[in-house]
């Protein structure tokens, strides 16, 4: 039993500006900031023209591709791209499709024809399959999937046609801003600390105990309800708090940053990681190591 009460303190942003003076040369803007008054540029996402001046409509970082200027917002809904790995939650079972909540502006769609049915066989989907849809995935279930295509209105079509995708079993979901997840070759990581993580591009991060056997016969629909050992739980809880700490201080999430943060948090109790001062300390240490690692 522990109660921890305190006065709020003004939160400082942890940064390494003193040691790295020229690292912060990113072009950051807030809504209304004039990006350029040069008319030779094209207006991209997150910008608008205000009397011939290109102005930011969101807070974030300016990105330039040739003549196109975009602002990538720090806090945003998920804008899907084909090939992204996402973690989502089933919200509705409809005819031949599931509706999936993926932190985008519109619900995503998972068609019955773009899942691997249990047994792994590839065949035409019959009406029996349609009737049994709720047996595979029901409302509230979490899935990992890949973005197959984007509809004209921006809604995403997902697929789980690979053994690595499918229904998620026991574990913890952490929600962060999509812009904090670094795009990488793989978003599935078995961390050496004893847990696995799926860093969904949509900002949904799934932490789960590393499965013992990698190839499941059920094609991703089998979920074990066996209790997870306490040691695995501790690792997962610590990782969860680390992810939240990194997200609070706006550190990009990828396997190395998560792992460094985990190691920095090891001397602290799991529940203490979320205290502001501990969080600051851990994130600072993580940043320091990341900079050293790069350099």
């Amino acid at each position: 039993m522990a109660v921890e009460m305190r006065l709020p303190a003004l939160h400082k942003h942890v940064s390494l500006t003193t040691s790295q003076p020229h690292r912060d040369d990113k072009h950051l803007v807030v809504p209304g900031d004039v990006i350029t008054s040069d008319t030779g540029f094209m207006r991209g996402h997150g910008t608008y023209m205000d009397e011939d001046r290109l102005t930011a409509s969101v807070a974030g970082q300016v990105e330039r591709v040739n003549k196109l200027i975009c602002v990538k917002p720090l806090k945003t809904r998920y804008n899907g791209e084909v090939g992204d790995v996402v973690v989502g939650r089933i919200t509705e079972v409809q005819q031949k499709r599931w509706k999936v909540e993926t932190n985008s502006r519109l619900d995503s769609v998972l068609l019955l024809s773009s899942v691997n049915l249990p047994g792994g066989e590839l065949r035409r989907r019959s009406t029996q399959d349609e009737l049994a849809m709720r047996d595979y995935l029901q409302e509230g279930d979490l899935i990992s999937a890949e973005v197959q295509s984007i509809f004209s209105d921006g809604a995403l079509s997902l697929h789980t046609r690979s053994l690595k995708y499918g229904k998620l079993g026991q574990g913890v979901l952490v929600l962060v801003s999509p812009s904090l997840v670094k795009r990488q070759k793989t978003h599935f990581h078995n961390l050496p600390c004893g847990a696995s993580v799926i860093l969904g591009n949509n900002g949904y991060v799934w932490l789960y105990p590393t499965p013992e056997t990698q190839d499941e016969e059920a094609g991703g629909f089998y979920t074990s309800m066996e209790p997870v050992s306490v040691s695995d739980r501790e690792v997962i809880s610590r990782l969860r708090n680390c992810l939240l700490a990194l997200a609070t201080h706006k550190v990009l999430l990828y396997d190395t940053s998560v792992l460094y943060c985990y190691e920095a948090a090891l001397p602290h109790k799991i529940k203490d990681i979320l205290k502001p001062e501990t969080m600051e300390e851990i994130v600072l240490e993580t940043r320091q190591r990341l900079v050293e690692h790069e350099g």
Partner: protein
Amino acid sequence: MAAVQVSEAEKVYLMHGVRDDLRLDGRRCEDYRHMEIETDVVSNTDGSAKISLGHTDVLVGVKAEIGKPRPMVPDEGYLEFFVDCSANATPEFEGRGGEELGVELSNVLYKVFNNRHSVDLRSLCICAGENCWVLYVDVLLLQCDGNLFDAISIAIKAALFNTRIPKVRISEDEEGGKEIELSDDPYDCMRINVENVPCIVTLCKIGHRHVVDATLQEKACSVASLLISVTHKGMVTCVRKLGRGSLDPESIFEMTEAGKRVGKTLHAPLMELLQKEESLGKKRQKVGFLG
């Protein structure tokens, strides 16, 4: 209330965690998330407090007005509660969506706080049978992340501690008419004794155990919860069962005992914090809503 969806497997994971006394965020079953409390955050109230407990954010304002005492208790003032569920907390509260929850919350708060064991209502009396102070306690939910009751009760206690009611004098003229005179000095004010003001502890039954300070996810996994309001001495002033499920008598007993134990420990750090904040006085830089 703002509900989250949880899949079966997540539920199993969470419930096994509670069984092993290790919750998703590493807390034990009787641990609170860390709280940040600040008083005197709204200048046009007589007393106010803001609390953030995890991502639950609650703002409480207390306003004192002169009203007529209730006929049954002519020598006591009273408290009125109003809970406003801001649509900022969750889109479900938009329009009239939060009304039901707001009424439920304010009814419970009325039961818990408006009695002479919690607040010295006699001290709110100005002139028996004619005038008394009415404390309007307005609660604003800014963010919901579970455990609303506990957060609100702590915020109310803090706000009552912060409340300063102007002193009044009653003068009588020759014809026997009474007139209320307000003191000219704005610092000449009365404070409320919050010693006996209870704090609410909500215990959520998850599996065979119960947890305090449940997050929304944990709440989604529990069938029923028990609300207990406890004073600093460990006296239980109100018990209520919330949720659809049922509780067997044995677990109610267990939960009441646990609630008493936890509730007692809430008061000391809270009072210490409030006194510390007061002793810092005007020197302290206020954080308010921009922290």
